């Protein structure tokens, strides 16, 4: 199963590098959204620093919806998803491969977004870089798991553009709350162990749900 998941993740990342969808669409969208939200709040730097974690994760959440949609669009272009599902590969491997590729893309996006926020909002990234990195990693894995699971459901729906956000956004609310709170504490240099535990729990549940349910969701 691991080999199949890695092959799928490598294929997805190669397609992304070739198609440059993330660079040409997701990244500009995310940066624009972040800057627009910052401008809407005004030039009050202490306020911006205070709300920065919320802005970051809302932006990442919307970007994740876009990236997920793109990931499944590529599978649907010429019936590739059906070919994938008709392979003897474990459906769980397909889910994990999709989630892994999405995680890598979102982590790369977060590096850019956090850098932009540090420059624009004066975020103290040096306060607890390891804790911040762990928060980003755990939150991203959970988000990618949700996206990969619901992405295949939305792909089968007639109104897939509207269905995906309706499925992903509510499911991601607990993760969003955890990630925002953990990021705030990490930026203040405070202990985030408890929040990391919550994020890890969310990841375990999301990955387990995806691994168990994906096969049922994709079958006719």
């Amino acid at each position: 199963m691991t080999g199949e998941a890695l092959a799928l993740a490598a294929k997805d990342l190669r397609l992304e590098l070739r198609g440059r969808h993330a660079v040409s669409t997701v990244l500009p969208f995310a940066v624009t959204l972040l800057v627009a939200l910052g401008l809407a709040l005004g030039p009050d730097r202490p306020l911006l620093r205070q709300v920065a974690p919320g802005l970051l994760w809302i932006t990442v959440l919307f970007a994740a919806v876009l990236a997920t949609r793109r990931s499944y669009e590529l599978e649907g272009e010429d019936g590739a998803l059906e070919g994938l599902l008709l392979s003897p590969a474990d459906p769980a491997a397909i889910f994990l491969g999709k989630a892994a590729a999405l995680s890598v893309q979102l982590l790369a996006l977060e590096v850019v977004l956090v850098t932009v926020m540090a420059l624009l909002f004066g975020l103290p990234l040096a306060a607890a870089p390891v804790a911040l990195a762990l928060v980003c990693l755990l939150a991203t894995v959970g988000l990618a798991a949700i996206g990969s699971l619901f992405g295949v459901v939305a792909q089968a729906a007639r109104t897939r553009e509207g269905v995906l956000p309706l499925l992903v956004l509510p499911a991601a609310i607990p993760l969003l709350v955890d990630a925002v709170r953990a990021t705030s504490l990490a930026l203040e240099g405070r202990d985030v162990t408890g929040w990391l535990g919550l994020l890890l729990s969310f990841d375990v549940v999301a990955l387990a749900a995806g691994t168990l349910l994906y096969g049922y969701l994709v079958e006719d």
Partner: protein
Amino acid sequence: MGGAGGFRHVVRRRTHPTCRIDAHAACLDGVTRVFGQQPALVRVRLVVRPGEVVLLRGTNGSGKSTLLRVLATAVTPTHGRGCVFGHDLVTDRRDVRRLTELVGHQTRLYGDLSAAENLRFVARMHHADPALVPAVLEQVGLLEVADERTRGFSQGMRQRLAMARTLVRAPSLLLLDEPYAGLDDQAGSLVHALVAATIRRGGAAVLASHDDLVGFAADRTVTLAAGETVVVPQPSLLSAAPGGLT
């Protein structure tokens, strides 16, 4: 077609309802598939033996593609059951998928991957040997464009690559849906080679086609009308194929 009361069942084969692994490459036992209110297959009974090439004929909407998709486990029977080499179409899906390859209207290629990358990915997902890829590409006449992205390929080239995928996988049950569509004569002979290679391995092939030319390669023709089988055994013509298929 019509309501359930209006279904015609032209031929009732007296086959054993359970597929025997040593005797049947594929079997369908009273398979019905309904999409919404519309029946696409109605109580279809079909047995395909190892070494057999079966041609499915019928008008548009007669259920040929659905039948192939049922055998490939892309579509689940609404009623009835079936199996491939003894593996149940519903409960043993992964085993059936290991043994079957459906070449349909869509080529299932990734446009931003090269021809070789597409095949290597298929090989990894199907536990086949990626080292076969160059030889297979040469066999289908695409070795020179092996490193080019398939987005720029013509439909014929894409069809050839779809057939190359079958050569990489070497399935036991080959399911071809209008395999000659978009292919020139030279590429058409690839279809024959694919079928012949499958038969040589002890497998079987089921082809759905409007093309009369395909008839010379079939052991048996099964005609579908409004989702129902309406027969038709024929003497084996495989050995009489021009140029030979074996």
